[in-house]
């Protein structure tokens, strides 16, 4: 008779005695669970923010390099307008070399006089060659696939440009850089491939984690100058009428080609609300790999994309209102009285 009573009392006492401890354990377990969730969320949010900043910085840095390339080339255009001190320039003096902006209407003397048109054409051609060399050097840094291979070409060149972004030293970060629509498609596809086979691609070892995708040269137009009183172009003045070798680069001045008339040379960027248009610019896709405190979803790949563009109105490369279709395709225009090599870059809006 006493056993059931005693046993029931012990059971009741055991149950009552352990009430607080199991509840505490449950609370602790729940707290730890939520704490791990919070830390994971923090890691994901932090990594996503870092990836976005890296993408922004890479896109802006590469676009800035393109802007610098345009500025350097156009600065040589403007240099041709300052061959004499401003106070000594006499636009009606036929014995003085004109600025390139005034060359078309300059009263050049006959070729028997000195300085003659051919000498002027030689001088302009020399400056054009320097401009072409600058273009090639910048394109090589960009990793433009239509450039000449050599030192600093491709990923190596981009690494040199982007080495100050120390976050790129992280073996769990990979970046794809592009400056054309074609390159953007390739980068998006490559991003998917890398993530699909993530464990094999992260962390990256033994190779560069900066990958150019479909990089093209910064598009420039070589403008011909038609000397009106001699009825010939500077190219013809240099080589002789009817003796210009086929494929010769026109002698004159250079400007960036904003029209996108050269195949695959521009990138569509959203520059304002809903304005998605072809621009000279660059983009970057970043993949950042992190490992979560979770047995189920351990490897997470965060991506971010950004595009930047050279602001067309931040400099002046052609006389406004003179752009027209060229007889040889693309566009042509008149030089402005002064070139403004002051181009800078902006981030594109999220599309």
């Amino acid at each position: 008779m006493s056993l059931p009573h005693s046993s029931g009392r012990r059971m009741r006492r055991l149950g009552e005695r352990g009430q607080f401890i199991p509840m505490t354990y449950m609370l602790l377990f729940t707290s730890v669970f939520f704490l791990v969730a919070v830390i994971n969320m923090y890691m994901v949010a932090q990594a996503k923010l870092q990836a976005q900043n890296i993408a922004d910085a890479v896109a802006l840095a590469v676009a800035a390099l393109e802007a610098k390339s345009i500025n350097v080339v156009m600065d040589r255009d403007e240099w041709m307008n300052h061959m004499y001190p401003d106070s000594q320039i006499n636009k009606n003096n036929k014995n003085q070399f004109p600025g390139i902006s005034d060359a078309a209407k300059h009263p050049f003397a006959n070729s028997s006089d000195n300085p003659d048109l051919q000498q002027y054409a030689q001088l302009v051609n020399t400056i054009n060659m320097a401009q072409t060399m600058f273009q090639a050097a910048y394109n090589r840094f960009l990793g433009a696939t239509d450039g000449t291979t050599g030192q600093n070409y491709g990923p190596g060149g981009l690494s040199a440009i982007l080495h100050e972004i120390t976050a790129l030293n992280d073996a769990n970060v990979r970046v794809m850089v592009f400056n054309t629509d074609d390159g953007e498609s390739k980068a998006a596809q490559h991003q998917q491939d890398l993530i699909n086979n993530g464990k094999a691609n992260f962390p990256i070892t033994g190779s560069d984690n900066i990958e150019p995708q479909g990089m093209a040269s910064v598009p420039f137009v070589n403008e011909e100058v038609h000397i009106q009183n001699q009825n010939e172009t500077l190219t013809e003045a240099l080589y002789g009428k009817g003796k210009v070798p086929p494929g010769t680069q026109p002698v004159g001045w250079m400007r960036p080609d904003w029209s996108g008339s050269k195949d695959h040379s521009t990138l569509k960027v959203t520059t304002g609300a809903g304005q998605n248009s072809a621009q000279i610019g660059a983009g970057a896709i970043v993949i950042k790999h992190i490992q979560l405190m979770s047995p189920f979803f351990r490897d997470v790949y965060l991506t971010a994309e950004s595009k930047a563009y050279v602001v067309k109105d931040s400099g002046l490369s052609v006389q406004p209102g003179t752009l027209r279709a060229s007889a040889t395709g693309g566009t042509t225009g008149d030089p402005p009285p002064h070139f403004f090599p002051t181009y800078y870059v902006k981030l594109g809006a999220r599309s």
Partner: protein
Amino acid sequence: MKNKSGQSTVEMAFLMPLLVMMIGAALFILYVSWQGIRTQQAANLAARVQGQERVAGGTSIGGIAQDNGSTTDSTSGVNTDVGVGFADFNPMSMLGAAPTRPVAGGGLAGKINKLVRDLFPGTSETEAYVPPPVIGQNVDTVSVIRKITMPRIPFLNNPGTAPQVTIQGTAYGGEDTFMYGLPRWGTTASAADPEWKTLVNQKGDKD
């Protein structure tokens, strides 16, 4: 009955402080995580401002250097954007060197500091601030520091000795330090006085 309730109370008395401390720690970690994300957000924003203004602002080289916190007005530290000539500007000094932080809230560095402080209302100058950015050749590095004082634990630490947790958010901006290094053939604010003439004249004076 006394015995039963007494046991439960004793258990609670032993475990409750532990539980409260653990919940407190969890809440602190939650707060630090949240502040960590906010700090990174602030760094991203500061880097964007730094980058954009370096390439899109400034009317003179001296003004740009001053705006970037590379030089300051020795009297007030406030950017006046005038009176700083080319001779005062040494681009090489900007390479990798930490520029002088403006004394007051002037210029770009002051603007970034104010922006960051506004993102963390109620914090002092030592709790949320932007150290001088690392000026690179192509890209600058901007950091935001957030210091959080841990709550004082009764009987464990003395007043004023509570440890601080330092959170740092780092972001990248400042896309082209030398975009302004090109001579400006065009006219400046004074149409009669092109920038290139000023630069050439000043260079002549130095030589």
